[in-house]
């Protein structure tokens, strides 16, 4: 895979989520994604970081999260990868309540799947979890589905 346009390590603190959102929204709009698409990316990343901080690191403020961002072409979009070093869990445990079951909490993972065009959770051999998500320009995604596969193998 090519080098990411941006590769950041942040401390596992809720206060850093707004700056990450702002950065990603700006990146998304620069690659031509619209307001709503930018908002969706922001929310998905927010939910993923919240889960890492809360479930992965049990709210320890001094752990690390790595975020990498790639601009994608054909179709146009963003790929965002989030890595942590928290004790990793079985992938089948990564799910919340059904959306029809209205309770506080348990929405994050569903939101990530609803918001993004590609969601890939994995356990890292070094320990910790990896989440890779992709979002494409609505127009681009509709017109070049065949390219998605190709692109994600670059």
């Amino acid at each position, binding site marked *: 895979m090519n080098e990411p346009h941006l590769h950041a390590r942040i401390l596992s603190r809720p206060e850093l989520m707004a700056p990450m959102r702002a950065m990603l929204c700006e990146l998304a709009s620069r690659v031509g994604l619209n307001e709503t698409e930018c908002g969706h990316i922001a*929310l998905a990343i927010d939910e993923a970081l919240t889960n890492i901080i809360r479930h992965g690191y049990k709210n320890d403020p001094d752990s690390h999260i790595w975020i990498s961002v790639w601009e994608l072409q054909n179709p146009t979009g963003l790929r965002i990868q989030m890595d942590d070093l928290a004790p990793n869990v079985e992938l089948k445990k990564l799910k919340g309540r059904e*959306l029809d079951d209205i309770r*506080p*909490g348990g929405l994050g993972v569903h939101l990530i799947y*609803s918001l993004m065009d590609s969601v890939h959770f994995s356990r890292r051999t070094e320990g910790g979890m990896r989440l890779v998500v992709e979002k494409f320009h609505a127009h681009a995604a509709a017109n070049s589905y065949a390219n998605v596969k190709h692109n994600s193998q670059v």
Partner: protein
Amino acid sequence: MSGATELVVNVETISDGVILHPKGDVDMARSPALRTKLTEALKGKPARLVVDLVDVPYMDSSGLATLIEALQTTRKNKIKFIVCNLSPRVRSILEIARLTTVFTVVANREQAIKA
């Protein structure tokens, strides 16, 4: 980070209840402040509780969870719970979480006071 960035939540009293008016993104770092204000307001057992989201450009699932929690208390205590003035972005978040029909959502404060 510093506490300088706690979510500001204005509280206004109306004839039959309370309007909460949070200002800023309601995310993991800031939803606890909204939760505190909602709990306080609910303790007073108002007939009506309005959350005016006019100055909330963004909300994540911790914000939604806070609202759902309040909704459940209001149901138990027969309090009218109304949210109003959703930005397109916040509305879209509620839609994706399939919550637009669960909450009483109205366009503006005027309607919220009458609803």
